[in-house]
């Protein structure tokens, strides 16, 4: 697979179909990868694709200068299923011209959540690691551990229905169609069963961890505003302290800003340095949108986004009167 990917990328660069290819390379830590930007054919050999390829690289596509530095005419990008769906989001929202992006899909078997791995090792440092399809083998200073891969996959991957780029220009291998998932919203349904007091306590507890570093926002493909509301200071919309009263507003507004746009790539969850459960609220909003508007983000370039369209027979029961 990886050889085919590298060959394909070399070919694209050689034929000048693209100026740059965004992909993943080996990271400097065990179980990590790092974004690489390939401009020379020979550098394509640095590309990898495996369960460590965590980042959603599409975040580098937006024209905002904070990402990728320069602008390129033609960009190739290697994508998992969720990543491909973010590109659809960009196309729908007119952030990119899809003609200028060559989408290279790779077959995704799920991505590893390092935080879950560290729970298994009881936070002991991992020094060596090997992933072999079904299992992850870990070595630390005083332990040797083999754990089933499925126990340490990202929550997003465990409920992913589109692991292989639903939209792509090139696919390495053969894409699977949609995967059947029965309990996609299980975490939300369980959460909804709790009393409002319990839910509030949980959310409060989680959001009080936040250090306002904005890694979640900055890795997120859906967060591409040139000026985020948290950065505006005239007027200043929200307090900047890490107090839960301030950070909760940041998170709830961000939840709404990504409503119907979040593709559940899980990039925010993995990026958070303090392990906040960012997924529960995003998934809740996704579920609402699915139920009310039968809309799933990032599948169809021609479909009108849920939050940017209106039809008369929409459910209106949330309007109290």
């Amino acid at each position, binding site marked *: 697979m990886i050889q085919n990917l590298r060959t394909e990328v070399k070919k694209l660069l050689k034929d000048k179909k693209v100026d740059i290819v965004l992909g993943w390379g080996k*990271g*400097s*830590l065990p179980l*990590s*990868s*790092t*974004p*690489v*930007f390939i401009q020379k054919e020979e550098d394509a050999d640095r590309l990898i694709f495996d369960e460590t390829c965590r*980042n959603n690289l599409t*975040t*580098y596509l937006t024209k905002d*200068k*904070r*990402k*990728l*530095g*320069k602008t390129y005419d033609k960009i190739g990008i290697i994508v998992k299923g969720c990543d491909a769906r973010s590109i659809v989001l960009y196309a729908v929202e007119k952030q990119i011209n899809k003609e200028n992006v060559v989408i290279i899909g790779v077959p995704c078997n799920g991505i590893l959540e390092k935080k879950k791995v560290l729970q298994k090792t009881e*936070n002991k*440092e991992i*020094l060596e690691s090997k992933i072999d399809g079904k299992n992850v083998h870990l070595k630390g*200073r005083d332990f040797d551990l083999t754990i089933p891969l499925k126990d340490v996959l990202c929550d997003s991957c465990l409920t992913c229905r589109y692991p292989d780029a639903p939209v792509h220009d090139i696919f390495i291998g053969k894409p699977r169609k949609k995967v059947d998932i029965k309990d996609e919203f299980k975490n939300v349904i369980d959460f909804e069963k709790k009393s409002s007091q319990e839910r509030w306590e949980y959310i409060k*507890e989680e959001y*009080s*961890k936040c*250090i*306002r*570093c*904005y*890694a979640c*926002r*900055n*890795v997120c493909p859906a967060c591409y505003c040139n*000026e985020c509301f948290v*950065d505006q*200071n005239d007027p*200043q919309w929200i*307090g*900047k*302290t*890490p*107090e839960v009263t301030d950070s909760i507003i940041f998170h709830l507004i961000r939840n709404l800003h990504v409503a119907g746009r979040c593709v559940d790539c899980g*990039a925010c969850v*993995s*990026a958070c*340095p*303090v*392990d906040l459960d960012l997924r529960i609220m995003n998934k809740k909003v996704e579920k609402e949108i699915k139920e009310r508007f039968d809309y799933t983000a990032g599948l169809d370039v021609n479909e009108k986004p849920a939050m940017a369209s209106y039809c008369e027979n929409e459910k209106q029961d949330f309007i109290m009167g």
Partner: protein
Amino acid sequence: MIKIKKSDFSTFITNLQKNYSVFAPVTDGKATAFKKIKSAEDINNKVLNTKRSPKEIFFPQSEVLFQYTEEGIKVPKREEKPFAIWGMRNCDTKSLLLLDKVFGEAHQMPKKDMYKDPYWKEKYDNCLVFNLACNKPLSTCFCNWFDGGPFNNTGSDIFVIENDENYIFEAVSDKGKKFLKEFKTAEQVSDKEIKKIEKLKETAESYLAEKEDISSLFSKTKEIWDETIWDEIAAKCINCGACAFVCPTCHCFDVSDEGKGKKGKRIRLWDSCMFAIFTKEASGHNPRSQSLQRVRQRVMHKYNYFMDNYDEHLCTGCGRCVVVCPVNLDIREVIKKIIRY
């Protein structure tokens, strides 16, 4: 050198609490951090590098500088007892010295009577710092690049070594000497035990990755400011503040007023040069509008500007930023790239 039995640790902490507000690494479902403890049971002595750095004890993420009303301003009342910090590692104790150059000492700066920050000084000047030796450094530790080490004690008052049964104390500063002198219940450490410490130290040092010679780092950074190397270094950075917020030496802050009607408060908050808004001027112009400029700022501040001002690198090699960076922008690789450029 004197020692206490591990079984007496709890009593030791209780006694310490009589005269000090004691802070130590705490794991409580949130990120491990230095927190004010209630009792010895709160302390996690196993964690090497806390996720959140101890700088927040002296320089909290948000700190009310004063409250204001029509009558005037009021500075919030501070802790009465001085602080004692248990369980800091050398990369952290050293970071306090670096921060003190900015907020406290201000020595070596061109002007002698530079502004000294009362909020920092009031907490830092009387504190007692226990530096716990690292028996098992992590693979991301690179304190040895910056002349620190798992068994170094720069920046601390009392150096503590943990072996199987005991905590061994060694005074580092005058403050530490005074404390240990008054500390009657401790036992002397035997020569045999001292020899064993050498062994622990050797083992710890063998865990560290190979030391990089960074003697050319400062001069190199002087030459590369407008070179293309920054394109390569900065391209993948997404400009979050994760690295700066976990870093024990990053110390940029913002000041924000939160008021309603005729009263309110002025707060000092951590800020980061990685944020786009950091240098945005009132006119709307932003001299560091590009990611590259901001990454360069962080790297240059650490390994050039601070050196220019204070003869030290603003980095202790704690490795926290290496661990948290969501795109694996590894500062060790940045340093190596610069040196070899």
